[in-house]
Structures are given as structure tokens and as C-alpha cells.
């Protein structure tokens, strides 16, 4: 559905731009300005995304992730409230299957102690990340099109000109979750081993305490790289997937204009289908990986090395 007014570069750039609300250098809060106009029709934008710096919110990312999260907890809560041991319905069966899967993963990967946080944490990560990843399978222009009042995403017709539906393709979403895991890792490391024990693990290994500087060079990057990679892995996979979908979407550009355009469109449909099927695997695998790795890292935080 790429509109004819856009060239490929603009189209890709458009799909990679978040709807951003932030604080401009002049102290005012507004939506970002892109190509000389505000992202939201009828608002004054006084600066672009890069000028906003840290104090900016990706409204689409937050909206989609919170919406999906809310859907998740309302659904789960309804099942939990009506959960009965003797007469499970179909939905309860499905949720129970999920809970059992998560519980088994917790039991396999987190053996340190009976921590009541681990199950809910793993379940939340798995379901929430899965739902966010799933947004990648929505036709790429559908939500931006709806957000813009059912007109081409960059046209003047609608209210919101920019809307990225896939929260995990914005690095803030996966890294925000990874940050939560990082905080938990530090909390449990210090709780289980004491601050001294935790620091000793980072400085006195693997070569003993006289080689502390070298140990630090080995241990600190390794310790933080894995936690950083937790978020980056999810972001990278889904961003790449999104990117491919964007590129495939370029095939549809000339669908109504020429015979080659029709042929390209048909090829694009086939490619889109193949990539979407393959992506189902990525969607579930990345959600699962995020959950399992979180459990593994928290288990490591509980262990004495």
C-alpha cells in the first residue's frame, strides 16, 4: 500500500520513525517534527526527534505495549478468577497449558530456591513479548493507515502520520525489559552473596585476587554483555524481520500502474507469505528465549561461582 507520492527511501524511513512526544530544547513538550511538519495533524512541533534527546516518549511503542499488556492481564485475570480444578473450559485449558509450559521451564532453569517471583515473571515475559512480537505479522501498513484516518500513512488526510505497530522494533521496549532483568540480577546477586561476594566474583576470578585488574577486564564485559544482549537479541531479530517486511512491501508500490507492477505485486505476496510463515517461528522463539535466558541469568545470580 505504499502510496505513489513516496519514494522507497521515504517509505522505509517513514516506517522506521516512531510517533514521538518529547521535550524540545526550548522547554516545550510536543510531538516531533519530521520533514517540516508535526507527526500529528493540528499540533505545533518545535523540534525533531534528535533534538529532543532523552526526554522523549515513543508514544506508539508505549501505547502498543501497554495495550497488549493490558489485554494480556485482563484475559489472564478472567481465566484466573474463574479457574476451577474440576471443570476447566477450553480457554482455561489453553492458559493452563501455557502456565504448565512456563512452570516446567522455571523448574528446569531456575533451581536455586522456591522464589514466587520466577513463575509470574517468566509467564509475563513470555506472553507479553510474544504478543508484542506478533504485531510483526500484522500487514505492515494496516495500522499506520488506520492511525492516519484510513489514508496513506504520510498523506495529509488523517490525524496521526506516524505509527509503528511493532513495539519491539523500537530499541527502548526490549531494553526496558532487559533493564528490569538487569536490576533483578543485581538485586539477587547482592542479596545472595552480599555486596562483597558479588564484587569478589567480578574481581577475583578467574585468576585469583592478585590479578584483579585483568579479572575485571574479563568479567565485567562478560557480565554486562549477556544482559545487554538479552534486549539486543530481541530487538535485532524483530527489527530485522520488520525491515524485511518493509522491503517486501516495496514490491506492491506499482500494483495498479503497470503489468510489471502487478507481477512484482504477486511476487511480493509470495515473498510476504513465505517470510510471515518463517517469522511465526521467530516470534515465538524470541519470546521463549527471552524468558529462558532471564531464568538462566537469575539462576546464575543465585549461584556462587
Amino acid at each position, binding site marked *: 500500500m505504499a502510496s505513489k507520492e513516496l519514494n522507497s527511501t521515504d517509505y522505509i524511513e517513514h516506517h522506521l520513525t516512531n510517533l514521538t512526544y518529547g521535550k524540545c530544547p526550548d522547554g516545550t513538550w510536543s510531538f516531533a517534527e519530521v520533514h517540516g511538519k508535526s507527526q500529528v495533524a493540528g499540533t505545533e512541533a518545535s523540534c525533531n526527534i*534528535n533534538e529532543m534527546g532523552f526526554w522523549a516518549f515513543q508514544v506508539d511503542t508505549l501505547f502498543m505495549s501497554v495495550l497488549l499488556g493490558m489485554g*494480556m*492481564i485482563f484475559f489472564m485475570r478472567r481465566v*484466573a478468577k474463574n479457574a476451577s480444578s474440576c471443570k476447566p473450559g477450553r480457554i*482455561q485449558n489453553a492458559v493452563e497449558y501455557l502456565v504448565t509450559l512456563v512452570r516446567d521451564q522455571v523448574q528446569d532453569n531456575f533451581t536455586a530456591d522456591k522464589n514466587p517471583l520466577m513463575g*509470574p515473571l517468566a509467564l509475563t515475559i513470555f506472553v507479553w513479548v510474544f504478543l508484542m512480537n506478533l504485531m510483526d505479522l500484522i500487514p505492515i501498513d494496516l495500522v499506520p493507515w488506520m492511525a492516519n484516518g484510513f489514508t496513506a500513512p504520510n498523506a495529509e488526510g488523517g490525524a496521526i502520520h506516524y505509527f509503528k505497530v511493532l513495539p519491539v522494533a523500537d530499541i527502548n521496549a526490549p*531494553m526496558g525489559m532487559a533493564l528490569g532483568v538487569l536490576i533483578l540480577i543485581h538485586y539477587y546477586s547482592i542479596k545472595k552473596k552480599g555486596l562483597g561476594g558479588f564484587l569478589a566474583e567480578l574481581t577475583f576470578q578467574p585468576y585469583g585476587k592478585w590479578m584483579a585488574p585483568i579479572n575485571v577486564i574479563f568479567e565485567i564485559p562478560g557480565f554486562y554483555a549477556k544482559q545487554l544482549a538479552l534486549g539486543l537479541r530481541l530487538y535485532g531479530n524483530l527489527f530485522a524481520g520488520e525491515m524485511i517486511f518493509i522491503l517486501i512491501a516495496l514490491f506492491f508500490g506499482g500494483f495498479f500502474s503497470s503489468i510489471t507492477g502487478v507481477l512484482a505485486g504477486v511476487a511480493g505476496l509470495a515473498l510476504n507469505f513465505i517470510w510471515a510463515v518463517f517469522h511465526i517461528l521467530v516470534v515465538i522463539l524470541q519470546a521463549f528465549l527471552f524468558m529462558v535466558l532471564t531464568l538462566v541469568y537469575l539462576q546464575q545470580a543465585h549461584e556462587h561461582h
Partner: protein
Amino acid sequence: MNFNATLFGQLLAFVFFVWFTMQYVWPYILEALEEREKEISDGLEAASRGKRELDEAHQKKAEILEEAKKEAADLVNQANARANQLVEDAKSAAHEEAERIKVSAQSDLDQAAKRTKEELRSEVAALAVAGAERILGSEIDKDKNSQIIDQIAQEL
């Protein structure tokens, strides 16, 4: 792709969802799950216990049946023995009674014969006396001759 405050927004949402799941979702579903697991394992255990009890009952039944059969056979044997005994007893009692009746009949017979003999003797004596009176033509003094008559009667 720039880091900004969205990071913390996402973190907050994450914390909230985990908290909510921990508070209101996970325990309830897990409880239902574990309850069902327990019910199933209890049910299976009850079933196997029932089966074991049934087997035991079958065995016990067989034992009781066997015992009852034996007892019944014993009773029949006893009854047979007792019946035989009764028949024997009755037989011997009958024998005795018959013997006794025979003996008493014999003695009655003997007595009757004896009495008849006595009667006959005294009649014969009277006849003899009468005969002798006729022959002698005179009356024999019974008192005088009674000794003789008795002697004759005794010889008869």
C-alpha cells in the same frame, strides 16, 4: 532508534504487569492446576486401592466359600453318622424290645402251661378219686386220703 525515556516507561509497564500477574493471575491458575493434579493422583490411588481391595475381597470370598463347603460337607457327614447312629440305636432298641417281649411271652406261656398242668393235675386227681370211689363203691374220705391223692397228683 534512539534511547529515551520510553525505556523507563517500558520498565514501569513491565514491573506493573509482572506484579499484577504475580498477585492476581499466577497463584490462582497454579492452584487450580495443582488441585487437579492432586485430585487425579488421589483418584488413581483410590482406584488402585479399590482394585487391591477387590482382589482381597475376591480372595476372601473364595476362602470363605471353601470353608463353607468344608463345613457343609462336615455337617452332612456328621448328619449321616448321626442318622446311622440313630438307625443303629433304633435297631438295637427294637431288638432288645423284641427280646424282652419274647422273654415275657415265653414266661407267660410257661406260666400258663404250668397252670394248665396244675389244673389238669387237680382235675385228673379229682377224676381219679371219683373213678376210685366208683370202683370202691364207697366214698373215700378225702381228708384221710388226701395225702395219697396229692402223691398221685404229684406223680402225674
